[in-house]
């Protein structure tokens, strides 16, 4: 059974804190993605990675960075959390040559 796991389901942080969101997949997928999901806006791509140590900006990368040191793990970093980064964060992975992205359960982040 394919699996994408995210380190936390719920997270509450203070403005200015550095926040790490972790994503792990066990499917040996090459590509991994970070999205945020907000009501009325759907899923918006923050960053993606197509190989270890490779990363590309998505549509809304400002205020975020990512790290992919191992194939199975993709981390999203909020350098200095702000209240407008309160959102649901979803990680996904995909295998080359296929079109189905597999999603994790999401992390609901609240920044106070």
């Amino acid at each position, binding site marked *: 059974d394919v699996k994408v796991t995210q380190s936390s389901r719920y997270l509450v942080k203070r403005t200015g804190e550095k926040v790490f969101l972790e994503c792990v997949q066990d499917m040996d997928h090459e590509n991994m*993605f970070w999205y945020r999901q907000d009501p*009325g806006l*759907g*899923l918006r*791509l923050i960053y*993606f990675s197509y190989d270890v140590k490779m990363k590309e900006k998505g549509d809304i990368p400002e205020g975020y960075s990512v790290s992919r040191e191992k194939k199975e793990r993709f981390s999203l970093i909020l350098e200095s959390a702000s209240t407008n980064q309160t959102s649901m964060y979803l990680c996904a992975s995909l295998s080359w040559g296929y*079109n189905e*992205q597999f*999603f994790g359960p*999401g992390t609901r982040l609240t920044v106070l």
Partner: protein
Amino acid sequence: QKEVEQDPGPLSVPEGAIVSLNCTYSNSAFQYFMWYRQYSRKGPELLMYTYSSGNKEDGRFTAQVDKSSKYISLFIRDSQPSDSATYLCAMDDAGGTSYGKLTFGQGTILTVHP
């Protein structure tokens, strides 16, 4: 203008109704069209996937793509309370550097009441 526009709903229907969910798009390079279903407090899961224009049926679900009108639809027949979820359309241009990136619609919240 967003690349993909989806009727936001929310949609509330009685059990047994036929449901129609729709998306329009502006990027003529989109080749792959998908519908994801997302239950509350879960990540999205792929429900239907079609390539180019035409219809695809899977049980009570039918996905329809009209590339000439840049319009896709998902029909649910004999809707059930278990179909209550958020439905997201998604598209991929399948270009060499797309890396499987998808462009999503805003999502439609569907509630099917008994």
